[in-house]
Structure formats: C-alpha cells, structure tokens
C-alpha cells in the first residue's frame, strides 16, 4: 500500500493509531469506508459509552413499536470488529483528551495513544429545566436503554406524556400507544413538527395522530413534573395537570461537545470543523451530530453519512470533495402516516406557492417557489412525488413550462398520465432514491445491472438503499421492475424463493394438478433450480404436501424448522421452552402440581404465564426435553404446539358457568373447539378465543378466529391481528347453536389451510381473497362448507397424535442426544 504524504506516519513503524470516541452510525459508516479504501493503514480503537455494538438508531422507533427487535437493527455485530482487528471498549466513556501527549483516557482508567483522533460523541437530549425533571419515570428517547425502559414502563398500560411534538416525540408516542398506553403529546408550538411542516400540514398530522387515539395538546408550556419519588403527572403553565407514570422528553437534541470543549477545541453550537471534518487541532476530527460545519449541525442520517464519506477519504489520505450542505427531506416513521417535507416553506413577498388539497382523501401538497424554482415542498397523505420535487429543487430547475400541472406530480407532465414506473424511469441518474443512505438512482440501476440483482433484498444488501428506514422501498421496487422488465413483477408473482420462479399459489395448484406427493418429486417436476431447496421453500412445500395429501404424504422431518422438529421453541441461547396444552385455558391443582414438580426436578429457570392462557417453562436443555415430556405426559398433558405453524390456543372467559353477564358456555365451547382442532398444521399460527358476552373478556376480536356469544347465538369473527399489525376482526356471521359454530369455524380454517400461502396469517389471506368471498363460501354455500369440514375431519385422523408422547417413546431420539462426547484426556499423549 502506498503511503501518503498528507498524513505523517507514526513514530514507530507499522500502522498509525486511530482512536474513535463514540460508536454510533456515523463513525460506523466512516470505518466501513475507511477499511474499504485503506485497509491496514490504521490500528483502530473505539471507545463506546454504550455497552454494545453499533446499531441502527433510526430503527429505535420500530423497536419501540415492537415491529423489530434489537437483533434486527444491529449494524456491526461483534464479529465485524474482530474480523477487522478493531478493539472496541464497550461501556467506556472517554473523560479526558490530552492533546499534548496525544492520549485519551476512559472512565475505567484505560489510556490509549493516538496519531489521529475522531470525536463522534453525538448529541444529548434536551431535558427541560423544570422541577421534577430528575424523577424516576422521566426518560429521553436516544438509545436502546431508553427504549427498553419505555417498553418496561409500557407494560403497566397506564398513562404516558411525551413532551415534544417533533419527529422523535411523535414516533415515541405512536410506539407507546401501540403497547396500549394512554398517551398525551405536549407541544409548545401551535402546530406539530412546525420546523418541518407548514401549519396546514401540521394540522392534518395532528388529526392523523389523534385518530390513533393519541391526545395532542399544542401551545402546552410545561411548568413542572409532579411526583414524590416517581412521576405522577405533568403540570402546565395554565394549571392543567395531566396524570402520567411515564414522561418522555423529546424536546430536541443538543450537540455533545463537552469533551472537546474541555480539551480546548473550538466549540460553537457543536464542535467546529472544516469541510474536511477537521477540528481546530489538525490531528483531531469530529463527525456526526456533535459536529458543526458552516454554522449547521445535523440530526438526520443522510448528512451524517456524507460526513462519514468525507472523513474516511481524508483519513485514507485521498483528495475528495468536501462536505456540502444539502436540505434533507423529513419523513415520519409511523405506519400509516405519510408525510414528506424538504426545504424552506415560510411565506415571503418574493415567493409563490402552489397548493393542492383533497380533503376527503386527507391529501395536502404545497410547493413553495422562488424565481420559478422550487425551494420547499410539503406533502401529506400522498408522498410519491417527493423524490421528484426534491430533485427539481436540488437542481434549481426552472419550472415555468409545467407550472400549471406541476403539483399533480411527475406522471402528469408531458401529456398523458404515466404509470408510476414511467415516473421513476424519468428520474435522472443522480436523483436521490434513498435519503438515509444517500443512494442515487444510477447507483441502484448500476448495481442491478452489474451484479445481476433480482430482488429487493439483493439491492438492500449491495447498495444499502431501502435498508434503513425503508420508506423508499416502493421506489426501489420500481427501479427493479424498470431494470429487469417482465422478470420482476412484485405485485403479480413473487417467487417462493431463489430456488424457483414459481409463486406459492402456482406451486399449490401444480401439487394438486400433477399429483405431486413428495418434495423430491415436486422439485423434479417443477424444475427447482437447487438440488434440495432452501430453508424458505422446504418448510412451505412440506406444509403444502401435508395439507394436500394428509393420508399419503410422509412428513419430511428435515424440512421442518427446528421448533417443529424438537416440538419446543428454540430460545436465543439454544435452550428450549415448553408449553403444555391447557384446554380452553382451564387447569387444575393436579396439573399445576405436576408442572411445579417438573420445574423443580429439571431446575427450569423461568416459568411464565403466556398470552394464550397457558404456562411456559423456559430454559429447558434440549437433552432434557423427552424426560420433561414424560413427566408432563404422566399428568395428562399433551403438547401445546406453541412452537407450531398450527392450531395454537383457544382462549376463553368463564362464561355462563360463573359470570353474571355470560350468555353462553364460552369455556365449554372453547374447550370443544380446541379438542376438535388441535394437532392441525396450518399455513401460519392460528390463535382463537371465545368470549361469553360482548364485554369480550377473552379478547376474541383480535384473534385469527373468535367467537362472541350473545343471547341469540354465536357471532363468528375472524381475520384479527394483534402482533406486528393490530387489526380488529371481521364478522363472518351469526349462528344459532354451538354445533353450527363449530362447523363454521372448522370449515373456515380448512379453507384457509387450502388457500393461504405459507406463513400468511388469516388476516392477510382474507385481505387477498376478500371477506365477501369467504362469507359466500362458508356461510352462503352449504355444500362447500360441508366439503371443507369433511376434509378437515379427514386430515385430523392423521394429525391428532401427541408429538411429545411419540418422542418419549423414542421416536427421533437422535434429535435430543449428542452423537458423541469427547473428553481430551484419552487423546492426550
């Protein structure tokens, strides 16, 4: 590798010492570039005040709302640091920089010398200077610890106040609301997100937020946070008191330049750096939220990644263009609220505006023009043209020619309306598609062509476009379609996986039409592109064959996911959890005693009550599973299939047996349904519930299938969801007797078993085929209903076998014991 003169080499030979303070997204990205450009040039040491690796902070909102977990947002796992020879001090906060000795020292007393130092200390949340701001239960929303604390607090399902109606505050509010908290947002200004939105869009946003059941108080001046030791409420300047057990401060951030200031570096709002990210000390650089360039500090990811690019080039000793300020579009990551804003949208004498409002559709679009050029864009409700408007703005395009139709978007220009793909096609190569990662159209289409990419996942892996917040996914898909032509059509047929071009529906149809009865036969007949499939297609094919040929097909054990092979749920540490069936959620002293004995005997570390009215034993060693099942089996327990894509639970309330409001025997019906249907494999898990009256204590209206008992009979519900998505059920119809209820439910589930794609829950399937069509077949067509019912009953003959007792009697015993145990003593010489 050639040495560059710009950076003096260290006193000793060998690589220069690069120390990085902070381990957020900006330094992470910088190191990726640097390792790519100049591998081996530096010996790199990172000090991270947080006790963990680099993760995607943009995705903290989805973690809070439960759509993702921490594992899914890690950018660099431990292996990355090891592979690149980087020393990472986790949980070490640097307390001093000695610029003369060129060392840094951490709060744990570690001192490290540097040739080049990068400060990436990020920002600190602004904590309002009001009484009570240090009470327990007052949190900020900056890192994973904050999110974990919020998730813990949310379990109480009590009241939360979020101070600040900006991007972060609204995402926090939506996340807490999704966990069932009663959330109020306090905002000092008259409209929400006033720095990014004009007042009209701010008002629409407030309506959309309120429609989700979140209260919004604007012009709310917080006077004090009340409580003795813990938060009890928030008091406003006008005397209003809002009770709360959790207060989230999301009133803004401040660049964290404290360490740099103590070291005597030049500080203004942030750490002052030049366009090459250099501070007032030529060996010290800063980047990220702590840095200030040309009077600007930044909080969105795109400019921070741009800083990373600039600094990496500088550290690699390469001449590169310096950092240039660009307005970054703002998008809100709250599912179902589409907004886009960029640039300047204040009124002014030299400005004109074009506004489009469509009240019933909740659409508002406003372009602010100056000298016939776009300087600001606000879009609410429909944001598809955001990239195009932003491109016109960035390039200062004179729009006089299309002024009349500009607001209708790109597809409207040039006469006939074009389809969305054509709109993307018309974008120039340097138009930005992914704002988070600064990926332009040319880079994506170039990668698709040169690397032969064929899917969204490929594009994410190779270009990082759509890999952060995901809001540009639609655009990326359009580009795929554009580049690949007919071979890519996500709306029509998505292949099952890379092993085939056929979609799930085609495969199911061909299994039936061609009488395919084994996985090898199927792969041969349908020209699978791999020799024995992959982990995505094999479990799906196994299910389709089980469903289609219940009597003839021999279940392919090796094509099942480990949970369905071991009949228990694998946990992150490789142990398993065990959930025995409790019919309808009813148990007895004898059953509880048997569980207690098993827990004691096998020293099971955690016992937990599940959401499906059963008991979960967590942390069981795989080798112990058969013995655990044997003991449970003696007490009469069978597998609860809590691990299966199959029939899970039927939750019940106590119904007319005990409850003074109960209209029917909901417990009895729940047990009857569960005993009839257990053991059945389904495309995705099926959770059911029966409530004895419309008070709905068994929460039947968010289940895959639910029953609400009423005086006149049984209301059958289906297609609810309370996981990644939250959705109330649809009413299928009312039936008069318990027998009819059972028949309708069984027929419905069989229809789902036969039609849904693997891993597709009932609500997604129902959305695809239509509620009306399902109602027509199940309630309107007695012959169809009976045929479905009969096919289910037939398949149960082969499915209702307790997998636990089978394995206690040594079926698949190889699964549970190591093949060999090697002790080194005999092998030693």
């Amino acid at each position, binding site marked *: 590798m050639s040495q560059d003169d710009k950076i003096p080499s260290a006193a000793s030979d060998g690589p220069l010492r690069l120390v990085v303070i902070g381990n957020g997204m900006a330094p992470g990205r910088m190191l990726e570039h640097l390792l790519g450009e100049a591998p081996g040039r530096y010996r790199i040491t990172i000090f991270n005040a947080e006790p963990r690796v680099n993760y995607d902070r943009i995705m903290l909102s989805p973690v809070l709302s439960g759509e993702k977990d921490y594992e899914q947002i890690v950018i660099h796992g431990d292996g990355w640091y090891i592979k690149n020879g980087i020393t990472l001090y986790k949980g070490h906060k640097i307390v001093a920089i000695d610029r003369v000795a060129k060392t840094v020292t951490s709060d744990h007393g570690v001192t490290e010398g540097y040739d080049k130092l990068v400060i990436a200390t990020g920002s600190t949340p602004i904590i309002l200077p009001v009484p009570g701001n240090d009470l327990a239960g007052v949190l900020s929303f900056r890192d994973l610890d904050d999110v974990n604390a919020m998730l813990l607090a949310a379990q109480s399902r009590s009241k939360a106040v979020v101070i600040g109606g900006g991007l972060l505050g609204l995402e926090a509010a939506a996340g807490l609301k999704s966990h069932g908290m009663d959330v109020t947002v306090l905002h000092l200004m008259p409209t929400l997100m006033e720095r990014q939105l004009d007042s009209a869009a701010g008002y629409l946003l407030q309506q959309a937020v309120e429609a989700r059941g979140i209260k919004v108080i604007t012009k709310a001046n917080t006077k004090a946070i009340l409580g003795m030791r813990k938060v009890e409420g928030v008091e406003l300047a006008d005397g209003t008191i809002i009770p709360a057990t959790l207060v989230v401060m999301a009133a803004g951030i401040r660049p964290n330049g404290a360490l740099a200031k103590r070291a005597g570096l030049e500080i203004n709002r942030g750490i002052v750096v030049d366009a090459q990210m250099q501070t007032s000390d030529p060996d010290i650089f800063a980047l990220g939220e702590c840095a200030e360039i040309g009077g600007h500090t930044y909080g969105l990811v795109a400019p921070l990644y741009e800083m990373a690019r600039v600094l990496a080039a500088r550290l690699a000793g390469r001449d590169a263009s310096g950092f240039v300020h660009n307005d970054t579009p703002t998008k809100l990551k709250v599912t179902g609220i589409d907004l886009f804003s960029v640039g300047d949208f204040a009124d002014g004498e030299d400005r004109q505006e074009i506004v489009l409002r469509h009240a019933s559709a909740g659409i508002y679009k406003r372009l602010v023009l100056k000298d016939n050029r776009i300087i600001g864009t606000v879009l609410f409700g429909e944001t598809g043209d955001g990239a195009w408007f932003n491109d016109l703005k960035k390039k200062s395009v004179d729009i006089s020619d299309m002024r009349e139709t500009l607001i209708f978007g790109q597809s409207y220009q040039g006469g006939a309306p074009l389809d969305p793909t054509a709109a993307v096609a018309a974008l120039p190569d340097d138009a930005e598609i992914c704002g988070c990662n600064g990926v332009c159209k040319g880079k994506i289409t170039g990668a698709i062509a040169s690397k032969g990419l064929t899917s969204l996942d490929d594009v994410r892996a190779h270009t990082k476009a759509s890999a952060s917040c995901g809001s540009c996914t639609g655009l990326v898909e359009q580009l795929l379609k554009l580049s690949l032509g007919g071979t890519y059509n996500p709306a029509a047929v998505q292949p099952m996986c890379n092993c085939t071009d056929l979609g799930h529906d085609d495969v199911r149809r061909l299994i039936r039409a061609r009488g395919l009865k084994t996985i090898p036969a199927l792969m041969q007949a349908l020209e699978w592109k791999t020799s024995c499939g992959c982990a995505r297609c094999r479990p799906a094919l196994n299910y389709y064959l089980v469903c289609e040929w219940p009597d003839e097909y021999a279940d392919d054990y*090796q094509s099942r996911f480990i949970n369905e092979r071991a009949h228990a749920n694998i946990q992150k540490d490789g142990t398993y959890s065990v959930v025995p069936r409790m019919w309808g959620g009813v148990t007895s002293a004898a059953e509880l005693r048997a569980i207690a004995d098993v827990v004691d005997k096998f020293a099971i570390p955690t016992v937990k009550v599940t959401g499906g009215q059963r008991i979960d034993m967590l942390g069981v060693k795989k080798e112990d599973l058969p013995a655990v099942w044997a003991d449970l089996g003696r007490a009469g327990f069978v597998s609860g299939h809590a691990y299966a894509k199959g029939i899970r639970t039927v939750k019940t309330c106590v119904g007319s047996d005990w409850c003074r409001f109960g209209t029917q025997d909901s417990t009895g019906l729940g047990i009857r349904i569960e005993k009839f249907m257990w053991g059945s494999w389904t495309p995705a898990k099926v959770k059911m519930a029966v409530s004895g009256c419309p008070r709905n204590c068994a929460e039947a209206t968010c289940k895959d299938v639910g029953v609400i008992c009423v005086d006149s009979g049984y209301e059958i519900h289906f297609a609810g969801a309370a996981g990644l998505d939250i959705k109330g059920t649809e009413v299928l119809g009312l039936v008069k007797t318990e027998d009819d209820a059972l028949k309708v439910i069984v027929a419905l589930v069989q229809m789902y078993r036969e039609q849904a794609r693997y891993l597709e829950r009932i609500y997604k399937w129902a959305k695809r085929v239509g509620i009306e069509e399902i109602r027509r077949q199940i309630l309107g067509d007695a012959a169809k209903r009976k045929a479905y019912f009969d096919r289910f009953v037939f398949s149960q003959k082969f499915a209702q076998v307790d997998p636990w007792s089978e394995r206690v009697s040594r079926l698949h015993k*190889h699964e549970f014991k*190591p*093949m060999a145990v*090697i002790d*080194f003593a005999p*092998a030693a010489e």
Partner: protein
Amino acid sequence: MTLSTTSQMTWIDIGATTDIPRRGARCVVTPQGKIAVFRTADDRFFAIEDHCPHKGGPLSQGIVHDAAVTCPLHNWVISLETGKAQGADEGSVRTIPLRHEGEKLYIALDVAMRRAG
C-alpha cells in the same frame, strides 16, 4: 491436565454415518464447545463449529440444503464446505477436518483448537 501440543492430527472416532439423518446434523460435545456434524442429501459429511458467526446460534439445529445450513435463529446461511456465511452476510465458522471410512466417521481436533481451551 495438560494437553498434547504435537502438530500431528489426532483422529477421534465420533460414531457411524447412519447416526446422522440425510439433510440433518448431530452434535459432538468437546471441552471447547459443540461441533456440528452434517450429512447432506448426497451423503457428504462435514463438521463445523456449532456456533453461528452472527449471534452464536446452534447451526446443528438448522435446515440443511445442498452443502449449506440455515441458522435457526436469524436465517444466516453458512457453507458447510468453507464455513463462510453466504450471500451478503459476512463471517465464518471454523471447519473441522472430518474423515469418513466405511461406516465410520472421525474428526480431527487440531492443536490450535485444543490449546484454545
């Protein structure tokens, strides 16, 4: 007890080929951790560390397809031949030398591994 530091490989008998189902795996427990031994659909055998480079998932519990396994925790695909993560993921696990004589399977634990403990 000190272990031998000879550079010779020590082949250790771990059992019979039929102990492992096709497209399946079994574990071998060693003082340095578990080793996963795989058998492919076409009766090839491989041994690798039972520890996914991503989050340490037990690879022996994954679905085996061709000469690769998909980790049960987060679906990383690991090549049984090279130990390397496939696709866009980066990382690798140690591969363990394995010999297959008739019905018998042997693995070799090298010096580095034995000293690692």
